[in-house]
């Protein structure tokens, strides 16, 4: 009896990340694919460099990156704008979609 309680407390004590749903992300990635869905695509503003490949990164890293854009800790203007419009749930869903299969 005590073990389930301990397990429940352990689960509850984990960081309160939103649970991502890759299926739900399909309605949310329209803003991502214009850049991240095109092989070798380069940003043209404010500097020219290749847009990173994000499929295969861990969901945790993708969420962290989006949170950093939202908080202003990363500078790319387009990504800042996009991240500001995403809820925690949106971020988790998009991360689940692109991080699918990553360990």
């Amino acid at each position: 009896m005590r073990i389930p309680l301990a397990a429940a407390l352990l689960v509850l004590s984990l960081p309160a990340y939103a649970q991502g749903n890759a299926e739900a992300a399909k309605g949310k990635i329209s803003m991502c694919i214009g850049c991240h869905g095109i092989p070798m695509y380069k940003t043209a503003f404010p500097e020219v460099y290749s847009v990173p490949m994000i499929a295969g990164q861990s969901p945790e890293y993708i969420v962290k990156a989006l949170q950093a854009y939202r908080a202003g800790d990363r500078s790319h203007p387009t990504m800042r704008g996009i991240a500001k419009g995403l809820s925690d749930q949106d971020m988790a869903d998009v991360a689940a979609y692109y991080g699918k299969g990553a360990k």
Partner: protein
Amino acid sequence: MKRILVFALAAFFGAQAHAAGDAGSGQQKSQACAACHGADGNAPTGPDFPRLAGQHYDYLLKALHDYKSGARKNPIMGGQVAGLSAQDMADLAAYYSSQKGSLHVIR
């Protein structure tokens, strides 16, 4: 007017070319990176550390420069890049971008 344009173009291309990365040297300099990103940049030791293997060279280089300039803020990486030269960063970017990895493009 024309002369200014030529100078601007020369400055631009000069800046792009000035530190081409060498993957072999990058590997020599990658020990500190391996502690978190894995030996070849493909096996991060924490769930929220990014994979680097196979990522685009110019993106990796930009990330390192942004950590150094403070444009990208991360307490761990900010400390790590403090001692790196432009050549070190180019070498590291060359090394990790040349590794085989599982990063890819999907729609």
